[in-house]
């Protein structure tokens, strides 16, 4: 396990290096600068401002310096939001995205596993076909279609849920998001994941139910629901674990759309705005943060998989 972990971390280093390098040079190749859009600065003032952030130096020197700072965990100050560091901005905005992402993955896992198991137990019956039809729809319809359609239906026409927005409620000193605000965004994010997870679980379950140890359990006369819950389910949801990494990546891109449509103050919305404003440091910081997050989640998924499945040996 330790060897596996260190090997994977070693592989992560060139990936992260590539991420930082690409992000840095792409941002710098952009026409425009973070300082042009505001009040007309006199050339002298502009020079002073640029010197303050080290932009008067040659590019390779800036790159080297940035790299060194990132290694130390310093992502620099924001160029647009005075007196705020990139880390502060990330810290202020990640909560909404985190709540959305975690809720969506939780909802999707529960519903997906339930539907998948149900479909597998009733293979080739109407409930199986219905579930798989939903799964195909869920995979085919992108979030930017479901989101406005759901808002139109439940927000505008029926008026049951708020159209957009986000608010916090304090419960015993901890801030929780308002439940009603979350229903639509979480549904939108969870739908495609439900589709994929239920397909995965169905396939896994069908295979497991045919395996020898399940036959053994049946021949011992165990009740069917015990076989499903105690014996089959554990093996059948294994593919789900290794899917969690890609799922999180999908949630990240989905949250870009969802945060825009529902006007939520999360990271995704911030990313596009910052890129348009040429806020170099903030954009690079976010790209690095997301890349790191995906790497870590994939690693956790792999380790979890090995821990749960004794047939897999990490190497």
């Amino acid at each position, binding site marked *: 396990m330790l060897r596996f972990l260190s090997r994977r971390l070693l592989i992560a280093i060139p990936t992260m290096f590539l991420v930082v390098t690409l992000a840095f040079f792409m941002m710098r190749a952009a026409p425009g600068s973070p300082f042009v859009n505001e009040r007309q600065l006199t050339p002298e003032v502009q020079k002073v401002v640029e010197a303050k952030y080290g932009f008067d130096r040659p590019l390779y020197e800036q790159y080297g310096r940035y790299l060194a700072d990132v290694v130390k965990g310093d992502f620099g100050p924001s160029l647009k939001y005075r007196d705020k560091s990139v880390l502060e901005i990330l810290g202020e905005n990640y909560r909404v995205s985190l709540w959305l992402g975690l809720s969506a993955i939780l909802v999707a896992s529960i519903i997906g596993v339930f539907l998948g198991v149900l479909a597998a137990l009733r293979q080739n019956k109407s409930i199986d076909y219905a579930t798989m039809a939903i799964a195909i729809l869920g995979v085919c319809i992108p979030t930017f279609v479901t989101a406005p359609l759901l808002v*139109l239906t439940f927000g505008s026409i029926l008026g049951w849920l708020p159209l957009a927005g986000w608010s916090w409620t304090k419960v015993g000193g901890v801030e929780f998001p308002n439940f009603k605000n979350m229903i639509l965004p979480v549904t939108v994010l969870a739908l495609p994941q439900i589709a994929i997870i239920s397909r995965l679980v169905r396939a896994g379950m069908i295979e497991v139910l045919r395996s020898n140890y399940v036959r053994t359990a049946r021949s011992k006369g165990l009740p069917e629901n015990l076989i499903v819950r105690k014996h089959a389910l554990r093996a059948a949801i294994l593919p789900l674990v290794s899917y969690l990494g890609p799922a999180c990546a999908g949630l990240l891109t989905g949250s870009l759309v969802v945060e825009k449509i529902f006007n939520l103050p999360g990271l995704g919305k911030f990313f596009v705005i910052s890129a348009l404003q040429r806020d170099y440091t903030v954009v690079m910081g976010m790209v690095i943060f997301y890349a790191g997050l995906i790497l870590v989640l994939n690693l956790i998924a792999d380790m979890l998989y090995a821990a749960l499945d004794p047939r897999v040996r990490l190497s």
Partner: protein
Amino acid sequence: MIPGSPERAQLMQQAVKGRSLWDDARRRLLRNKAAVASMVVLAVMVLLSILGPLVVPFAYDTVTKTDVWAAPGEAGHLIGADSLGRDLLARLFAGLGVSLGIGVVATAVSLVIGVAWGATAGYLGGKVDEVMMRIVDTLYSLPFIFFVILLMVVFGKNIFLIFLAIGAVEWLTMARIVRGQTLSLKQKEFIEAARAAGLKPAAIILRHIVPNLLGPVVVYVTLTIPAIIIAESFLSFLGLGVQAPMASLGTLISGGAQDMEMAPWLLIYPSITMIVTLMAFNFIGDGLRDAIDPKDR
């Protein structure tokens, strides 16, 4: 039965007329109702995107002030008009064409890069393979959508850049699939025969490996096109894709989402078109997979 007898000759003829792998695949595909229906739907969509603009009495970018938010059926707008009085049907046909076009072209880009990369890595093997696939792995773990967004933001919203950016992302999976297939193909006798005949690696890859990759590649292509249509629409939705007055399904949905309370048809018709298109591609892809690789069923 004597060698050279008429019966034997007849039998030989029958044997020659046996069904090839592709005959079998076509037969299985045509038996799949969902796939056949999807092919018809898709053919209609392609025709509509080409011929539709000739039939509709409006151009996709004609602004008519008197027809602002015309409801479906009003003022000759069959499915309504948008906030600038542009005919939705004309825009829908144009947008469908743009989306399908981007899907096909970007898929072609990813196909060429992916097949070349994967076949080379798989055939040469060893250190070359390891380095090439390590590069793919590394690129795979990048948060690509962010780089695509960066690309669009940084270099302006150019339609060729959309092709390039999306094609560059999608080739990775293609390379992986092709490499896996190549690894098993190169163990086959006919490759050994080609090598024994003195063919150079480049010629073997081009003439013997690539044509035999067709099956899985075709399947993946039909699944890549919808993925690319989604990616393009996603960018358009964030305002980074196709630029006005041009339309794509993504920009139409995005615009429709903004005006949906005033004019729900602006959201509903493009959404339905999008969903039907994507589902058609998915069914064809599934059908092809079942047809070409029957063990996966």
